[in-house]
């Protein structure tokens, strides 16, 4: 599934002026090309024309001059309705249809394209599975019966339903709280690694841009392209004072956002479970040497908290109530910046790395991140 199903999206001298508007264009002579299968994040302050630029791809807004092409075809040469059915569209408020069930929402575009009902049903199940929504549970629910994060997931798979080559996402995670946003971003990156769409992603949040982008287009007031490059290159070599100010003084620290937990070698934790003999746990902790604490997990291997060696003394079994909860859990897709921040604010400066099912797969330490920081520009792997 690693093949690219995306298409090349190109802006060629695209300008948008609104009739009766000021002399300043909303988007001014924009030219850049998004390679197939990449996430291009449009970022900039308000009034920089980032949403306008995105909407010119599916003709919600039409350019005054210049052209937008998808795999070489001018979008203006296709009927707008037909074009839009081939482009996934996700907005911040999600815009799920309240009178349709989850399955019916996802099926909207396939129905417009007159897919056969069995094919639609199969596709809906596949997509819900893909974002971790059990079809049996969620298929027949109405949007009002979903949490914010679940709605956002349905919004994303609805846009992917007819397997479009290009997807437009307008601040798709802007309306969820920071913790859920991080999870949704990670989940979306995992998904994108499988489906390889060409994605035009709008945000005003530089950190989100750095995390999500293969390439970032930084726009400034008046819809002028300030810089278009990979996140690493933009942070290492900002093209102008504007870009430098926009990405922030903490550029060095932001480069941490480019590294993922999965780029760092993980340490093996000393795992203990409730009810196991203390002597055994004590011995394993002693053998490991480097670690001062053992990690208590439940029967499904999910982290419950740290166990101090003092609580492993004497006979008897491991007492789960002695565990100090609050070990920060991180996903492989979490950025090193988030990992560092979580570790610095917890009592034991170790992060617990978990998989999609929250099962522990390893530990990450502040030291191991420091080693990555010392590596030269461009050496950090970029997913």
């Amino acid at each position: 599934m690693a093949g690219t199903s995306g298409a090349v999206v190109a802006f060629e001298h695209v300008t948008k002026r609104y009739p009766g508007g000021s002399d300043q264009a909303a988007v001014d002579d924009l030219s850049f090309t998004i390679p197939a299968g990449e996430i291009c994040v449009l970022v900039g302050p308000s009034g920089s024309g980032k949403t306008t630029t995105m909407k010119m791809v599916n003709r919600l807004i039409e350019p005054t001059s210049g052209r937008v092409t998808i795999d070489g075809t001018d979008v203006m040469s296709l009927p707008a309705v037909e074009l839009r059915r081939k482009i996934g569209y996700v907005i911040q408020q999600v815009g799920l249809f309240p009178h349709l069930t989850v399955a019916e929402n996802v099926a909207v575009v396939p129905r417009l394209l007159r897919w056969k009902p069995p094919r639609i049903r199969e596709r809906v199940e596949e997509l819900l599975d893909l974002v971790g929504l059990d079809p049996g549970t969620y298929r027949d629910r109405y949007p009002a019966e979903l949490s914010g994060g679940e709605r956002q997931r349905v919004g994303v798979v609805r846009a992917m339903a007819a397997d479009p080559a290009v997807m437009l996402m307008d601040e798709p995670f802007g309306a969820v709280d920071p913790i859920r946003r991080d999870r949704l971003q990670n989940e979306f990156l995992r998904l994108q690694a499988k489906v390889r769409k060409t994605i035009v992603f709008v945000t005003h949040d530089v950190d989100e841009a750095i995390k999500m982008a293969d390439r970032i287009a930084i726009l400034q007031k008046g819809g002028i392209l300030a810089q278009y490059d990979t996140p690493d290159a933009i942070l290492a070599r900002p093209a102008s004072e504007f870009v430098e100010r926009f990405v922030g003084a903490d550029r060095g620290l932001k480069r941490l956002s480019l590294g993922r937990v999965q780029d760092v070698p993980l340490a093996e934790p000393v795992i203990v479970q409730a009810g196991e003999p203390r002597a055994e746990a004590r011995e394993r902790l002693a053998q490991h040497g480097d670690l001062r604490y053992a990690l208590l997990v439940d029967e499904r291997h999910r982290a419950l908290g740290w166990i101090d060696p003092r609580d492993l003394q004497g006979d008897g079994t491991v007492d789960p109530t002695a565990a100090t909860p609050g070990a920060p859990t991180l996903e492989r897709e979490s950025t090193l910046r988030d990992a560092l921040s979580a570790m610095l604010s917890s009592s034991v400066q170790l992060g617990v790395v978990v998989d999609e099912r929250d099962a522990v797969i390893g530990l990450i330490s502040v030291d191991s991140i420091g080693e990555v920081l010392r590596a030269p520009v461009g050496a950090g792997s970029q997913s």
Partner: protein
Amino acid sequence: MPSDQPLIQFDWIVNNLGEIGRRLGEHIEMTVIAVVIGFVVSFGLALLIRRYRGLSGPVLAVSGVLYTVPSLALFALLLPFTGLSLLSAEIALVSYTVLILVRNILAGLESVPPDVSEAAVGMGLTASQRLWRIELPIALPVIVAGVRIATVTTIGLVTVTSLIGQGGLGYLIVVVGINQFFATAIYVGALLSVALAVGADLGLLRLQRALTPWSQARAE
């Protein structure tokens, strides 16, 4: 009204069941005709107003003024043109339902959240697909609420049309009851009219709930 008359003469009711049933049927028929025609006209007007925004002011102004005309006066105004006829009665009844329904249909269509409309456009639905598949279903609870008000109002107004020789149950109240000082007919007519209004209101509410299961859905 003679005071030696018993409040309700049950033998009259039993002897006139046929007539009472006929008047009830007539009442229902006049109501249904008025609401159905009123709905079709209002629906057309609401769609026109949405297409040509400029119409909204004049249409709502005219309908607002019409609504303030007392029903009795409206029937009287129509007499020179259409006489003491069912047509006069229906013209007045339809006018009143239109006033209520146009506003509610528009309010219903405006209740569609902007993000839902934006998603529908962005996903490639045509204007008519958006109207029939998205906007009208979402507007349905508000539209049916309008139909309930219009129906209950019409059931009440039908009794007044007895003054121009129509009237359904109003015939029992006015012609048999008031004109002939016969209390039983007034009670029968009034009670049946109220029962009809309550029944229609509840029936439409149940219909709306059945048509829009999603409107009761809430997060667990």
